[in-house]
C-alpha cells in the first residue's frame, strides 16, 4: 500500500524485569485496515496491543498513530501524563474483562469519556451516547447498571463507550475470551460491522474463524517475535512456518466456530 499507514510500530521492545516480552516488533496498519494478532498465551500479543495506546510504556522503538509519534529508549524523555491522556483519547480500547464502571449506568458509562475528557455538554454527550448504544443494539438498556447485563451486553456497552470518544483506531484485547460461547456471536457481529464501516482496528483474538473472516492481515506471534504475517486467509489456510501450523492445528481450520460441546 502506498498510502502512509495509520499505525506504524518500529523496533518495539519491552521487558518486564528479566522477561523480554517484545523483541524488536515492527507493525503497520493501513487506514481502515483490520489486523488480527494471534498466538499462544505469553506470546506478547496483548502487551503489543497495550503498547499501541501506551497503556504499557515500551522500553525501546517507536509508536506512531495518525500524526502522533512517540520514541522510547536511548535517553528519550517519557511523555508526561497530559500528553499520554490526549493521545489515548484518540484510540479506543476494549478489554477482555469489559472493565465497565460498575457505579454508573450503561448510558453514564458511555457518556463518561465525552463529558470528562472531551468536556462535552451533558445533553450533547447523552445524545451521542444513546446513538452509540443504539448502534450496538442496546438502546433499551441505557438505564441499567452493568451488574444486571449479560457478558455479551457488557462487552457491547464497552465497545459503545470506546466509540463515544470517536476514535481513529480501535484496539480489541481478547474481547470475547471471557464470554459464554453463546454470547460470542453478538460481540463479533458488532466488531464486524465496525470493520465494514472502515474503522482501523487491531484485534487480539483466539477466534481464528472470525479473524479469517474479518481481518485483512494476520500476525502470528510467539515468544515476543512475529513468526509469520500476511493476508489473513492465506496465513490461516496455508501457513508457511511450522510454529504457525502447530498453533493453528489446535483450532478448526475453516468454517464456523466449533460446536459448544466440542472439546479442544
Amino acid at each position: 500500500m502506498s498510502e502512509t499507514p495509520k499505525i506504524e510500530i518500529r523496533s518495539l521492545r519491552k521487558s518486564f524485569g528479566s522477561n523480554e516480552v517484545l523483541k524488536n516488533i515492527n507493525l503497520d496498519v493501513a487506514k481502515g485496515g483490520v489486523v488480527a494478532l494471534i498466538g499462544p498465551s505469553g506470546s506478547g500479543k496483548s502487551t503489543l496491543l497495550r503498547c499501541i495506546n501506551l497503556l504499557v510504556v515500551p522500553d525501546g522503538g517507536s509508536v506512531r498513530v495518525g500524526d502522533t509519534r512517540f520514541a522510547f529508549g536511548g535517553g528519550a524523555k517519557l511523555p508526561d501524563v497530559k500528553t499520554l491522556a490526549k493521545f489515548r483519547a484518540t484510540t479506543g480500547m476494549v478489554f477482555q474483562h469489559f472493565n465497565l464502571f460498575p457505579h454508573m449506568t450503561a448510558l453514564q458509562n458511555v457518556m463518561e469519556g465525552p463529558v470528562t475528557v472531551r468536556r462535552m455538554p451533558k445533553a450533547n454527550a447523552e445524545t451521542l451516547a444513546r446513538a452509540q448504544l443504539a448502534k450496538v443494539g442496546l438502546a433499551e438498556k441505557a438505564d441499567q447498571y452493568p451488574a444486571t447485563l449479560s457478558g455479551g451486553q457488557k462487552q457491547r456497552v464497552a465497545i459503545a463507550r470506546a466509540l463515544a470518544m470517536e476514535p481513529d483506531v480501535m484496539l480489541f484485547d481478547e474481547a470475547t475470551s471471557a464470554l459464554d460461547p453463546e454470547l460470542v456471536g453478538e460481540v463479533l457481529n458488532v466488531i464486524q460491522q465496525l470493520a465494514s464501516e472502515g474503522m482501523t482496528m487491531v484485534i487480539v483474538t483466539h477466534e481464528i474463524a472470525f479473524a479469517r473472516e474479518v481481518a485483512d492481515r494476520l500476525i502470528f506471534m510467539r515468544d515476543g517475535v512475529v513468526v509469520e504475517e500476511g493476508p489473513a486467509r492465506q496465513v490461516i489456510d496455508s501457513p508457511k512456518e511450522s510454529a504457525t501450523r502447530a498453533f493453528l492445528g489446535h483450532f478448526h481450520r475453516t468454517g464456523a466456530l466449533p460446536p459448544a460441546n466440542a472439546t479442544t
Partner: protein
Amino acid sequence: MYQWDFGILWSYRWLFLNGLGVTVGFTIVIVVCGLLFGLLGAFGSLSRFKALRLTALAFIEAFRCTPILVQLIWFYYALPILAGVEMTPITASALALSLYGGSFYSEIIRGGIVSIDRGQSEAGAALGMTPVQTMRRIVLPQAIKRMIPALMNQSIIQFKNTSLVSVLAVPDLVYQSQVAAHDSYRPLEIYTAVAVAYAAILIPLTILVRRGEKRLAVGE
C-alpha cells in the same frame, strides 16, 4: 445489697451536658482533621515519589504503633520542653487524636483505593483520562463505598478515645463525671449514666450509616 440512686444525677445535669458538648465537639474536630490527615497519608503512601511514600509511612507507623495515651502526654508535656512549642491541653489533645486517627484512616483509605481492580483505572486511562480524573471519577466513588464501614468503625473508636483527654484536664464528659463522682460519692450511678450516654449517641449513628451503606450499594 447496693442501693441505686439515679436521682442524684439530676443535680449534675449541667455538668454532664457541658461535658457531653465538649466530647461531641471534640469528636467532630478529630474526625474531620483525622480524615484530612488520612487522605494525605493515603495519597502519600500511594505516591510515585519515594520521599513522599517514606514520609507517609513514617507518619502512619509512628502514630499507629504507639499508644494514644502516651501520645497525648507526649504532645502536652514533651513538645514544650523539646521543641519549645507550648500548647493548651485542648490543642495538644486535638492534634494528638487527629494524627492518631489519621494514621488508621490512612490505611483504610489506601486499602480501599488499592482494592479497586486495576482494569478500572486502565479503562479510564484508555478513554483519555488523566490519573487525577481517573481517581476522582472512577476509583474513589467505588473505593469510598468499600471504606465506609471501616471508616465508621474507626470514627466510633475516635469518639470513645476522646475520653482519654481527661488526663490533660480537658473538661469532656468523662472528666466532668470524675468531678461529679468525687463530689457525690456515687461513682456507680455516674459512670453507668456516662456509658449509657456514649451508647445513646453511637447506636443511632451506626443505624444511620448502615442505612446509607445500603442506599450506596445500588447497582452492585
